[in-house]
Every structure is written in C-alpha cells, then in structure tokens.
C-alpha cells in the first residue's frame, strides 16, 4: 500500500524522505509534506528515514491518524513536488523533542 504523511511532520518538515523517494512523489507547502498515492510505488524507503516517524504505510496507520490518508490525497496534487532536501522548519528540533524522538 502507498505511504501517508501524518501530523508529526507539522512544524518539523525535516524532508529526509524526499532524498530517498525513487519517484519524487512528495509534494509540499510551507507547513508539511504530503504523498501523491498514485505516484507512490510502495517501496517504503521513506518510512524508516523520517526522524519523527511521520510516515506510515496506509495499512499501518494508527486509528487516530487515519484521516491523514484523505488529507494527503486532497492536498498533494495541488502542491509542487519537493524532491531535494529543504532546510527544516525553525521549530523542528523543539518539535522533535516534544514528540519524544531523539
């Protein structure tokens, strides 16, 4: 199944994921990234590189994050492709600690 970016990306946007995506299926705005499900080839390379575990295979989405599948589907197509590493948001490190990731 394709992957989905969830709310852990908000205020972080580390963008490690885009460097390992073989098909450049991440799209983004100033707040976070989204995946275009039709473009994702389901390799899951991005899942393990996210420093804040924001990315899930659809079938692994926890119940309280299931809405993110629809949000990704709605927002990704309208936003530009992000295929190179961006500077993380200024709030990223604080947010990472807040989420409990080292």
């Amino acid at each position, binding site marked *: 199944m394709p992957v989905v970016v969830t709310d852990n990306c908000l205020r972080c946007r580390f963008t490690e994921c885009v*460097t390992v995506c*073989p*098909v*450049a299926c991440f799209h983004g705005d100033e707040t976070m990234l989204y995946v275009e499900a039709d473009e994702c*080839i*389901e*390799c899951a*390379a991005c899942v393990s590189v996210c420093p804040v575990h924001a990315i899930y295979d659809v079938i692994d989405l926890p119940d309280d994050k299931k809405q993110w599948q629809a949000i990704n589907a709605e927002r990704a197509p309208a936003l530009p492709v992000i295929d190179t590493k961006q500077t993380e948001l200024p709030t990223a490190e604080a947010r990472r600690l807040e989420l409990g*990731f*080292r």
Partner: protein
Amino acid sequence: MLEASEFRVAIVGSGPSGFYAAEALFKSGAVAVDMFDRLPTPFGLVRGGVAPDHPKIKTVSAVFNRIAKLPGFRFFGNVEIGSSIGVDDLRQHYHAVIFACGAERDLRLGVAGEDLPGSHTATEFVGWYNGHPDYRERSFDLSKEVAVIIGQGNVAADVCRILATPVDDLKKTDIADHALEQLATSRIRDIYLIGRRGPAQAKFALAELRELGSIRDCNAIVDPRDLKLGAVCSVESVDQAHESIARNLAIFRDFSNRPLLHRKSIWFRFFQSPSAVLGGSRVRALQVTRCRLDGEPFKQLAIADGTVTDLECGIVFRSIGYRGSPIEGVPFDPHRGIFPNVEGRICDGYSVQRGLYAVGWIKRGPSGTIGVNRADSCATVASLLADKAHLAALEKPHSRNLQYLLNERGCRPVSYDEWLRIDTAEIDAGRARGKPREKFTRIENLLSAAGIASHAR
C-alpha cells in the same frame, strides 16, 4: 553530436544508482552522459532483481525513461567495460567515470559441501526466474519436498515467495517462461528460512515479511518458543529508532498463533547456523548448529555452540549478501567487495583516482533499496561537481572517437531507442500470454528484437 567542449561523463551500469547519478548530473547543468551496460537492456536489478510479483516497484522504470530522454543522454547497451572497452579507454574519452555496477556476486558460507549439486546461490535463482541471460541455462531440481533458504532478508523472502506461490498466480506476472515451466512441476511443500540470529534481528522489511504470511494455500510457521526474547533482544525491541523490530515481532507473533490449514508451509527457523551441506552426489541435508546470542544491543553475534541437527532437504539456496566484482584498472577492496572511496571519489589507499567515482552498491556495499541509491548518487555527484572545474580543464583528445573505438573493438552497442524496441516487443509477447511482459532471455533474441542483424553483432 556532442560538442568537444562539453563536460563528458561515462556511467558504467544502468541500474537505479546509475540513472539517479545521471539525473543529478543533468540537474547541475549542461553535461553529456554516456551510460554503459554489459547487457543489451537497462535498469539493473529493477529488471533482473525485483521479483515478478512486485510490479508496482518496477514502475520506477518510468522515472528512468524520463531521465533517458533528457538531452545529452546516450545509452550503450551490450558493451562490457573491462573487457571490450577498458577503463583506460573511458578515461581518455570522458572527464569523469562513475561506476554504478552494483554487487553481482553472492557471499559464500565457507562451509563444506557448499558447491554440491543442489546447493545454489540466490543470485542464480533470482536471475533465472527474472530471465537474466547469464542464468538462462540453469536448472533447479524442485522434485524433493523440502527446500532450505539460508538468510532472512528480502532476497531470501523473494526466493521463498517464488517457491511457495501457486503457479497460477505467477502466470500473471512477468516471470520468465522457462522458470514458470519448471516451477509448475515443483513438488516443494516445506520451505525453511534459516537465520543464525533471532526474530528481532531478521532483516525482512515489514511488507516483505507480511507477504510471507499471505501466500495463497501456504502456512507461515514460527515456533512461539523463539519469540521469548532475552534481555538484550527486549531492549532492542522497544528502541524507538528501530521501530521495525517491534513491528516484525508482532507479525512473527501472529504467524505463531495461526492454525495450520494448508499443505504447503514456510518455516521460520531462528538461532541456526549452517555448518555443512551434506550429501554424496547431491544435496541430502543441511547441517545446522544451534546458536545463542552474545553482545551489546544491536551488536549481538550468533555463537554456534548448541545442538547439531541435520535438516533433510532436496535443495539449498544461500542468500546471505552480495559483493561487487573487480574491474581491471579500478582499485578494489577485496574484504568489503566494493570500490574503495571517500564520498564517492575512488581511492587507492590514500591516493584519489582522479576522475573515477562510485555510486550505489559498489560504493557502499549491498544494502538499501532503490530510493536509498538516489540520495547516495546525489552525494557522489556533489563530490564530482566540486571537482568539475579541475576535471573540465583536462584535455580529452579522444572524446569524439568513441564510435571509432567501439567499431575497432567489434562492439555493436544497443541504443536507448533500440532498447525501446525490445521493450515494445516484450510487452507484445507478454500480451499474447496474459502477462505484462515476456522477457527475451537470450542475448541473440534481445539483439534481434532490437533490430540488430546478426552479422552486425
């Protein structure tokens, strides 16, 4: 035609890391990229490695097609670097040479009986079912009921799935016809996946592990006793940075609780170190020694000091990793099986080999999926671009004479357009059989599909 003033780069190998290196070079501005492959076909392991029942992953080739259409890109299939054309030849023609030639050889177990008939490498089997011309003439004795696969990574999972999946399901994939024919006669009923360490150390990716439990008419069996973790494994299983361990363990736990409903079974066997392949004229059994784990979290080693058992079987596959092969004229690290490099710049000891670079598995060893190679290729190209001014100043007097050299050496390269003819012909041949593609598996058939007459080869 290329301008003599252009910055010219040769890429040796046309798998993912080669294409991603080309993409990164084109993003940097005006360059000319010539990509070489020893086969008439591009895409490396995407064509010859990715399992036929993983069609979604193969669609990454659409990305490579887009890169191949960029101005300045040329493909030279059917040209082996190191034999017909030497690395020195390339250095005379190009400002830089990037090696993207992967890791094509299997690691050896180093145990007695390893080369008995019936003991195979995963590479042979994978190449065979994927229609790689090197393995076209292999055959595998699938007439006994038990098969053993040594290794617990994604390649072992691929081999296992192909052995366990009903042929009716494989028929709809692009699996090579000669493999389908032999698999249809298979009597394999029990497949053992052997690992020296435990379930917390198994290397399967989550999706691949799950798949092993969802093959039609096949059990996935884990001994619940193997899931009682020791203290160190428990530490590993709750580590936040290694979330996949807990997820894999949950899947193994699910497998261990399932009723056995089917005739066919996949058995996960942990803590077993292969100590010999037994048999007279061919494989009769794999001898394994029970192991315990010793060491710090994430550094535990398997110590084989327990009970020795003979696991009776008719065929053995080893899938314990890969190494690269040396190429004449390029430094090689025989221990790691890679081209030694610093940030992608190939080195011989402390001396950088000017203009030689490495990407992908030949750069860092055989791990990481397709996308990981994209980041890796970008990193090497960044090193190359930092050296560009210096490299571009070097005179390449032979840069216009590549065609002359190829003619002189009797090479008839396959261009990208000619590959696209092969591609179309394979898809057409597949359609007739209800498959997405029927690969041509002999060099002569590939060349004739490319429209290259036999006298011109």
